[in-house]
């Protein structure tokens, strides 16, 4: 191109060399055969790898479903309890403060009487004392009764029908987890009690139904696995996700826009870029101990609070959001920026009017995936005290939800899995089902968003 005087030089062609492709096209040469065999082998390896992956997935899903579905069923017994005025409200004034003085111990006799009455009514013959009969009920029953009375003091003196939780052993017996052989050394239940259970099942008094309390309820102490639920820890996770969303999305998107669209490309931005990628690879427990040191020990934010959990998870999610946002911004073709600048838009107008709307689906997808990651994260929560028996009631206000001690879904699962009673083990699997439903839903939304709004140039 640059040398103007150049003329095409003659290519010297020597005598015709013998063809390197002499054989027939209809027969494969040994070399081709080898290549084709290698290709077939590689395909077989690939299919085998996918097969193994699918098999693992199948095993995982069947195990989780098989072990976890039990948590969504619970055994209840229906009893008529007489709310004796003499015991619950000695003064007869219906003064709530006085009624509150009666502890659950004061309610236990009422339940004992109700069970005994029921057994008598059904005509079941037994040598068991009322106290042993009441043993088929959960220790939570008295608390249920007390809560009802405190809410409806006007019902004192009447006879009310209640549906009480049975003890975890009875529940296990109904679900097949506990058998007459397995309770030989179990002090919590006797074969005679199981006889009563069988009779009550026959009479329709005792039945296993869908367990809404598992989804909406709070964690319960070691002695009452049948009363434990995921609800409050789900709220804990929700409040953490609110914090993560409120902080990580604006900070992450602002940082990415600046780095991608405005920042000069020099050694400083290079270092920042490398370190953002490094942060994405930092083990989450490191963020946990950082949160412990900075947010709790230094800033004195409350322990076990979803606010602190959210802050820690924000640190963890930021790199994910920044990386995916930058990728989404990079995917917007430069011709769009040129077009906007060409009609006299400022750089910020070009970004906010044209680039950002086009990158939004990608940013959203990255954010949802980052949130899903944060939702399933357990390790940092261990270090800021969100694991353990945190018997909290459902928070009533936003501030309460952010600041009062709470757990989170994965932390709750971990907590149940390490408790001794096999009934908790079943609940841990059930919790995993709930967590997975959330994660799969979020990822599905991300995929749908990407599919629907993805633009091709």
């Amino acid at each position, binding site marked *: *191109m*640059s040398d*103007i005087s150049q003329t095409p030089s003659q290519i010297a062609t020597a005598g015709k060399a013998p063809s390197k492709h002499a054989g027939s096209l209809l027969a494969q040469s040994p070399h081709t055969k080898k290549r084709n065999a290698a290709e077939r082998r590689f395909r077989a390896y690939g299919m085998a790898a996918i097969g193994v992956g699918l098999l693992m997935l199948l095993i995982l899903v069947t195990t989780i479903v098989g072990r976890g579905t039990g948590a969504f069923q619970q055994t209840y017994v229906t009893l008529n309890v007489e709310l004796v005025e003499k015991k619950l409200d000695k003064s007869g004034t219906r003064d709530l403060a006085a009624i509150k003085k009666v502890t659950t111990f004061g309610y236990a006799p009422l339940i004992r009487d109700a069970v005994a009455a029921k057994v008598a009514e059904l005509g079941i013959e037994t040598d068991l004392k009322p106290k042993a009969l009441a043993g088929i009920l959960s220790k939570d029953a008295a608390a249920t009764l007390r809560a009802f009375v405190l809410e409806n003091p006007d019902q004192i003196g009447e006879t009310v029908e209640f549906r009480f939780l049975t003890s975890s052993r009875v529940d296990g017996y109904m679900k097949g987890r506990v058998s007459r052989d397995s309770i030989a050394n179990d002090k919590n239940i006797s074969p005679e009690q199981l006889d009563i259970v069988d009779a009550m099942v026959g009479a329709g008094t005792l039945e296993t139904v869908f367990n809404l309390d598992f989804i909406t309820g709070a964690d319960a102490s070691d002695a009452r696995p049948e009363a434990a639920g995921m609800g409050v820890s789900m709220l804990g996770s929700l409040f953490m996700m609110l914090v993560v969303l409120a902080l990580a999305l604006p900070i992450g998107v602002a940082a990415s826009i600046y780095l991608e669209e405005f920042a*000069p*490309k020099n050694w400083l931005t290079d270092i920042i870029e490398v370190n953002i990628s490094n942060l994405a690879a930092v083990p989450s427990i490191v963020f946990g101990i950082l949160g412990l040191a900075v947010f709790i020990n230094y800033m004195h934010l409350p322990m076990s609070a979803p606010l602190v959990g959210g802050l820690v998870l924000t640190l963890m999610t930021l790199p994910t959001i920044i990386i995916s946002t930058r990728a989404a911004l990079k995917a917007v*073709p430069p*011709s*769009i*920026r*040129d*077009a*906007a*600048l*060409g*009609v*006299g*838009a*400022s*750089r910020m*107008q070009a970004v906010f*009017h*044209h680039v950002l709307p*086009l990158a939004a689906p990608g940013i959203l997808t990255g954010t949802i995936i980052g949130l899903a990651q944060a939702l399933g994260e357990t390790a940092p929560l261990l270090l800021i005290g969100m694991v353990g028996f945190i018997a909290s009631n459902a928070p009533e206000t936003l501030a309460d939800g952010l600041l009062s001690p709470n757990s989170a879904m994965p932390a709750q699962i971990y907590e149940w899995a390490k408790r001794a009673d096999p009934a908790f083990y079943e609940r841990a699997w059930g919790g995993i089902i709930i967590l997975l439903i959330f994660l799969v839903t979020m990822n599905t939304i991300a995929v749908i968003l990407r599919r629907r709004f993805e*633009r091709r140039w």
Partner: protein
Amino acid sequence: MNQITALDKTVQTNKTKISARNVNVHYGDSHAIKDVNVEIEDNTVTAFIGPSGCGKSTFLRCLNRMNDTIDICRVTGDIQIDGENIYDPRVDPVQLRAKVGMVFQKPNPFPKSIYDNVAYGPRIHGLAANKAELDEIVEKSLRRGAIWEEVKDRLDAPGTGLSGGQQQRLCIARAVATEPEVLLMDEPCSALDPIATAQIEELIDELRNSYSVVIVTHSMQQAARVSQKTAFFHLGNLVEFGATGQIFTNPEDPRTESYITGRIG
């Protein structure tokens, strides 16, 4: 317009719109534009021709400071529009680009409606006081872009759904909507078929009445057809600049002659 041969072109002298003095452009270590001096007139189509990589697009992008977006690009020298140096630190490139519109090689409508594509520039520059005025600007611009008749019934349809030639005319309408004084076109027909090219060329000839048009093109025939002045760039140098008829029939520099006769490039 295809019948007009380069020879017959009458060249009247118009007032100078853009004047470039000793312009040098560096991309990092590479020297892309070397000491270019050129006077671009008002109401004239000026064509920049030359082989790939000769710097003609780079020089064009200097005229509305689109090169500012490239970090490693450094421009020195003096480029004046109406006697004002556009590289003066007091000049806001955004204001400059409203005055010097640009049409790109690949049609690049915004992925928005046809209406919004054209209305975007007037909106951000505050050219219309109300919706009726904006409607008027959009219609006028689309007519100028010679695409009104084709799209008037579907202004809400996405601009990206048009054919390539229509998209490019939409981009011209979009550039015209901000009422620029200079229109820069960077190989506007290279992605188009011959029929769409003919339409655009016809349009360029009409635009000459209102604007100073600078067009970069790979096609010498196109330069001969649409322009009154032609500049030949080679390896970053402005080799020859003059009336189109003269460049194509009686070039002074042997390199120009080699290029237009097809021996280089």
